[in-house]
């Protein structure tokens, strides 16, 4: 494969932008935000092309960058308030997984991510998106974010516990009124 450094921007755009757009749509739906973040991700790719020497690493770089930009977006919306729809009462607090998930699964997952975005540490949210929306294995996530598969397993376990806490608090009506702070968010620094 040709390295990014030597490639024409139109070739790079044709090769990577469709999958960036697809990835952003999984995280943010068919929205203006998804389009903005896809464009921002591509711009960053182009700006940083000199530092991505191995063309095989490009996709992992794109997944990491777009996921982090999407998390920023979730948190901005969460702080603004008012745009996040509540989950259906019957909905489970779980995220859908991988290529086999349905559109409804993903809509539900995006709402859930909006709800918990500012209550969950960045790296757990990142791992959860890569695992549950993109279907990555622990090892693949580790490769994307620069951690071991074992660490990813631990982050995802904590994320699941926080969702369980969120579920319990939501059912009692506490979560949205009291500024939810489930779990221990200070003692899990790497």
């Amino acid at each position, binding site marked *: 494969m040709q390295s990014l450094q030597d490639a024409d921007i139109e070739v790079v755009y044709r090769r990577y932008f469709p999958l960036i757009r*697809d990835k952003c749509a999984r995280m943010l739906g068919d929205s203006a935000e998804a389009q903005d973040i896809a464009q921002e991700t591509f711009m960053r790719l182009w700006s940083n092309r000199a530092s991505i020497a191995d063309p095989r690493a490009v996709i992992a770089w794109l997944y990491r960058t777009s996921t982090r930009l999407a998390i920023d977006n979730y948190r901005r919306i969460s702080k603004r308030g008012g745009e996040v729809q509540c989950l259906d009462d019957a909905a489970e607090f779980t995220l859908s997984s991988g290529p086999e998930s349905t559109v409804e699964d993903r809509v539900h997952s995006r709402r859930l991510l909006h709800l918990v975005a500012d209550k969950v540490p960045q790296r757990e949210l990142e791992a959860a998106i890569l695992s549950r929306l993109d279907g990555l294995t622990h090892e693949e996530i580790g490769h994307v974010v620069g951690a071991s598969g074992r660490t990813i397993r631990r982050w995802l376990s904590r994320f699941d516990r926080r969702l369980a806490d969120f579920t319990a608090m939501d059912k009692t009506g506490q979560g949205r009124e009291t500024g939810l702070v489930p779990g221990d968010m200070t003692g899990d620094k790497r």
Partner: protein
Amino acid sequence: MNTTSRHPSFLELDRYATGASRSPETRAHLSSCSACRRHIDRVSGAAASIEIPAWVRELATSSVAHSAVRSTARPRWSGATLVWSGGLASALAAAAVLLVVATGDRPGEPTVTETADRPGPVGRDRKSPQPGHSAPYTGAKGAEAVGLYIKRAGRVSLWDGSSPVMPGDSLRLKVVPGGFTRVAVFSPDPAAKRSERALIELYAGAVEPGRGHLIPAAWKVDRAVGSETLIVVLSRAPLSPGDAVRAIAGPTARPGVWVRRFVIPKQVVEN
């Protein structure tokens, strides 16, 4: 808990679609899984048919290190730097014939630094027949000029010189540099203690004289109370924030630089 999916991940599928993976397992899976094949087809098909938007071409012609934008603290602007296309392209095309933009200071001409950091319309030029008039200046093609575009709820419009922006709006600039070869965009640093005029560099890069340049960075308006200020400086050599401070500090812009200050009122609605 690992994923229990028997499908390859989207990461693996995307690697396969772009030729970065030739995994026999993935190939075997694709031969029997229509859902994964659809993803590959969608990504590959789009790659073949996708049109190259204007912002990509702008990016190609810009020699700016985009990362420099993010390496600088931007306390008045929230979130990531964003860009957009779509309606902007047509808006820019329309602007090419008759530039309806804010024009800047030339050495020896009236300056706009008197409006520094005050909310209100841009370019309250002393030559203006109606000081404070909110209509933007109409200039001839070929002169230095800057247009400020606002994206709100997916729609892009040229700023009218007076309407307030709102949190969440994205701002973007188009520059016609005249004979200048460099453009830099600054914002006052509210945390600066040594000088009220201290600036933060939001963007800097080369421009080609005589043609319009869509700045490949944009900024999202935050919820902080007060106006937003963008200072666009055209020059013939790179300017540091300190150089820019000195260049715009006097009553008139220094020779060799051209300055336009946008003071944009902001409407913050409390929830």
